[in-house]
């Protein structure tokens, strides 16, 4: 809060403004790519808040004028005491004091109103920004999430948005009042005495020179410091999260040594940066006082000749202070604003991301499909130059189970991604019940699929809520029935709060097998027409898998199902097994047929069961 007040109090020469941290801990400024355009866009984005902001700016304007008047009024009051030695003009003093009191009161009220309104405006803007960002995320394709880390996205949603909020609520108002105070002070100074104004300007080039010289040095140092800090934090992150390995390999001393090296470098750079930036304030103080002395001397000379009153000199000193101080702050504020705009730019980057294309105009709702799936010459690549699937064609009859096997990276998961339109084919087409899936609405298409993935995802909430995720209006009986069918009921009943047990983030308090059973119950309840099992049991030990296998079998009954699995025994009962390698189907058939063929599948199968007597 002091920052906003610095410009407001009537401060004849005194100590420089006190600011904790201040210039000393500022990192390098992140510069926006296109400052003006983003600022303009931000302004447009504010929509209905624009009127309110205009009102606030008006308040600031009036308040700044009042603040500018105060030293003048104090000067006049002092004049009332000093024009005739020993005689005080009480009538005049009274008027001045009443005006001054009124001005202070108005200043406080305007300040309060401005702060009160700004709190609402800034937070509403930020909330709107967050909401629209989150809504935007709902419309983005899976590819967007696949290509970015969570940390990166989280930082956009929280740090960057916060940054925008700070720059709106703090720096814009400060910037405005700062500019007004500087301009106004200059005007008042010239009005009071052009000669004195000229005299006090002697120090301005000195201030600029000093700030630039030091800033030049410190900006490099701060950048370097930030770099070392990043390095150090990276090292800490790595060695602490991987501490098992550090200890297992007796590498404690080595990582400590590495740490010391970066830590020492950080100290050296940090020390230099801090010392250099620490010089700024004391030297500035000297320069300012030098200016004051010049003003006092010149003012004294003028006063001797009767050109100026003592009160005018007092006000003049205050104005020259006010003129210099925001000048120092402005650079700082501008940096905050810049980093805010850079944050806004990153937020807009996401808002501008390409969304999942809208459904075609003649798209129809898919309801209870029978589950006849045809891949017709399908090609696909996540990147244009790297094809993943090449001319894949196959047909899945209604109610059959199709197993996809093959080495990692062969394109198994891609087939599933295409089927559910997480990605769209780049060549050929996929038919469901005889119609190109691009002609169904995406929502209705996905609703027809049930997923059991390797990484089950559970949301914080109760077990019941998690099972109901796919069918929010399910009754308690339905939930229980689904859990019983999935074989999850057994362990749920053992929990102290049963179905009302609250799960930690991503079900951290359950074992992997239990989480998987919940995911199956979730699908069970949603009763999808088609089923996708992507490595559904690969992270589960084989005994637990037995139970889950049973649950899966009842789930697969009468549903067209696609199964991806590493462990080949889990898919030997599938109606049709497809071996995929390098984006192509190289073998198709039942387990028996493929074994008889003694080709690729046979090789894979027997290597897995080598020596096992299978």
């Amino acid at each position, binding site marked *: 809060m002091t920052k906003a007040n610095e410009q407001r*109090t009537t401060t004849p020469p005194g100590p420089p403004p006190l600011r904790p941290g201040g210039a000393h801990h500022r990192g390098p400024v992140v510069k926006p790519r296109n400052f003006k355009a983003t600022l303009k866009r931000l302004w447009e984005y504010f929509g209905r808040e624009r009127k309110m902001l205009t009102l606030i700016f008006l308040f600031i304007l009036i308040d700044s004028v009042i603040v500018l008047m105060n030293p003048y009024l104090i000067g006049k009051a002092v004049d009332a005491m000093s024009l005739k030695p020993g005689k005080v003009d009480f009538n005049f003093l009274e008027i001045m004091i009443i005006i001054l009191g009124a001005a202070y009161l108005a200043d406080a009220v305007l*300040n309060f109103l401005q702060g009160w309104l700004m709190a609402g405006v800034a937070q509403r803007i930020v909330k709107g920004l967050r909401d629209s960002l989150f809504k935007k995320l709902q419309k983005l394709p899976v590819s967007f999430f696949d290509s970015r880390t969570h940390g990166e996205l989280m930082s956009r949603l929280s740090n960057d948005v916060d940054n925008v909020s700070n720059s709106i609520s703090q720096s814009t108002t400060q910037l405005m009042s700062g500019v007004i105070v500087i301009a106004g002070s200059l005007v008042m100074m010239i009005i009071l005495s052009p000669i004195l104004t000229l005299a006090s300007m002697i120090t301005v080039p000195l201030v600029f020179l000093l700030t630039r010289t030091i800033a030049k040095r410190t900006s490099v140092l701060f950048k370097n410091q930030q770099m070392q800090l990043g390095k150090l934090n990276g090292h*800490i992150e790595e060695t602490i999260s991987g501490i098992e390995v550090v200890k297992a*390999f007796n590498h404690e001393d080595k990582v400590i040594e590495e740490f010391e090296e970066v830590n020492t470098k950080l*100290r050296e750079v940090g020390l230099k940066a801090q010392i250099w930036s620490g010089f700024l304030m004391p030297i500035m103080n000297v320069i300012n006082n030098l200016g*004051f002395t010049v003003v006092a001397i010149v003012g004294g000379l003028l006063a001797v000749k009767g050109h100026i009153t003592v009160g005018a000199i007092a006000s003049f000193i205050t104005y020259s202070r006010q003129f210099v101080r925001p000048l120092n702050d402005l650079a700082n504020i501008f940096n905050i604003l810049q980093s805010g705009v850079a944050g806004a730019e990153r937020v807009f980057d996401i808002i501008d991301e390409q969304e999942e294309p809208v459904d075609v105009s003649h798209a129809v709702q898919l309801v209870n499909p029978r589950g006849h799936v045809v891949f017709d010459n399908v090609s696909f690549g996540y990147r244009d130059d790297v094809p993943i699937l090449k001319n894949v064609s196959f047909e899945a009859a209604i109610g059959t189970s199709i197993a996809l096997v093959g080495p*990692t990276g062969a394109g198994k998961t891609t087939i599933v991604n295409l089927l559910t339109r997480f990605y769209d084919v780049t060549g050929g087409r996929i038919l469901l019940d005889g119609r190109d899936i691009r002609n169904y609405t995406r929502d209705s298409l996905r609703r027809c699929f*049930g997923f059991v993935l390797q990484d089950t995802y559970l949301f914080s909430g109760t077990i019941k809520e998690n099972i109901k995720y796919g069918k929010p209006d399910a009754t308690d009986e339905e939930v229980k029935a689904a859990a019983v069918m999935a074989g999850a009921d057994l362990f749920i009943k053992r929990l102290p709060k049963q179905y009302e047990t609250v799960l930690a983030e*991503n079900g951290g308090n359950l074992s992997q097998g239990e989480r998987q059973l919940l995911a199956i119950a979730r699908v069970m309840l949603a009763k999808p027409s088609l089923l996708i099992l992507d490595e559904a049991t690969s992270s589960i030990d084989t005994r637990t898998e037995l139970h889950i296998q049973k649950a899966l079998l009842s789930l697969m009954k009468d549903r067209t199902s696609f199964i991806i699995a590493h462990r080949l025994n889990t898919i030997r009962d599938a109606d049709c097994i497809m071996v995929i390698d390098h984006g192509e189907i190289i073998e198709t058939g039942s387990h028996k047929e493929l074994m008889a063929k003694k080709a690729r599948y046979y090789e894979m199968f027997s290597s897995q069961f*080598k020596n096992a007597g299978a």
Partner: protein
Amino acid sequence: MGFLAKYIKTYWKSFSIAVLFLTIEAICDLLQPTVIAIIIDKGVANRDMDYVLKMGGVMLLITAIGAGAASTRSIMASIVSQNFGTELRSDLFKKIQSLAFRNLDKFDRASLVTRMTNDVTQVQIFVNGLMRIFVKAPLLAIGGLIMATRLNLHLAVVLAVVVPIVAVLIIFNLKLGFPRFTKVQQALDRVNGVMREYLSGVRVVKAFNRFDVEVAKFSTENEHFKEESVAANRLMAVFSPAIMLTVNLGIVVVLWLGGLGVNNGTIQVGHVIAFINYMTQILFSLMMISMVFTMFVRAKASAGRIGEVFAEENQLAWKDDVKSQPEEKGRIDFEHVSFSYDAAGGEPVLKDIHLSILPGETVGIIGSTGSGKTTLVGLIPRFYDVTGGTMKVDGEDVKHVNPKRLRDKIAFVPQRNVLFTGTVAENIRWGKEDATQEEIETAAAMACADFIESSPEGYQTRIGQGGVNFSGGQKQRLSIARALVKQPEILILDDSTSAVDVATEAKMKAALKKYANGLTTIIIAQRISSIIDADKIVVLDRGEIAGIGTHGELITDCLVYQEIYRSQMGQEAL
């Protein structure tokens, strides 16, 4: 917060010097308004130019002394705070590295990282602030009060009213503000929580078409966050103008009383101006003090979190290093071992494990999730100490062995792949610092990490943080190569081939047999095929040994093993 004592002992002298210079600086600041008053009253008012020049010189001198003191103080403060921060960070890092897992388990890993980074910085900034302004603010406030009172006792009455009011306002501000901002922080955490959850579960949300629910959930939390922030900020919007108004009205009163005084001839005009200067100075100091409180609370919380780590004592102890030459290298004995993670009679994870592993043997461990496999092998390198029974390696009770010496014999490949930033070669060299290129290549060949050589940069390929640019199977093979280059007596593979395909795994095992003869190998596996040819297979079930024997023996007389086998090979396999 006893851990700070060490640093106080080291730095109190430099700290005191910094504070001394800070005091000089504050005194110079305090003198300025008085000098200005003298210049106006005696110089300007009397049109005495010589006096103005003379006092102008005095003023510049005072400023210069102040600047000199400030610069010295700044250098001292920088040295103290930077050295202190560096040392604290380094000590904390060493402490963390020295702790046993039983200690480390008390903290979340992410929270340890935060303690190392944010919390240390927080404390460092506070210490730096102490020498820059935090001590100066009270000095200026008290000094300002003294100077103003000395200047004029009558006018000081105004201060006697204004200062307490401002103090009360600041206290209220803090009292009401703190809980508000805590609430804001909590609301923000919840917003981020919803966000994080959405990002991790995006496929599920899409699959179930639950956008509306997610948006509604987010909206609710976001709205709540907005409300809390607006409330907190509005509270601040009341106090700041109120404090300003109090002081400014004080100035108006001073002007009026000053006018009366000047009329009586008891006060000089310059004094009135100086008095107003001191008032604003006191105001700034008071504001600063309220800021110091905020910083102090934050730094105290951080110091507390750092202190928690320092308070941990490594519970692993050992006798003096006995350099006895073991007769049998690579022998492991579990003698009626039991273990629980909560030492104080918690649920036992391992119960009465009795097992001997002979030098050169290959032992497979199999059992369902949570049966205690990882815990069992974690006892061998003394990641944890047994809570019952005796754990022996090479015939020596590990409780008497320096963990460093013990771990030198053992190479461990954890379940979770941990690779470090650096090149592939550097990562493999973790196992043996002075390994030659040839040794590295041999280890990589044994681990079937042939993808290294087929990549354009080969062993010089950089690994990003956490190994993001490698697939799971590749990372596993790199981890294995890293273990093999160590040429250990004992090799422990904790389910470390799960992402490697079966053919490659078989090749790896064949290579191990050929090159690493005499190496005791322990393999935890999910797939029976991974351990089927082991000399001994240990079947774990709920922390107990359900069977020990070869595949042939277990398949006939171990129920649990049969069940596992059936689940993997199909019903008809038996």
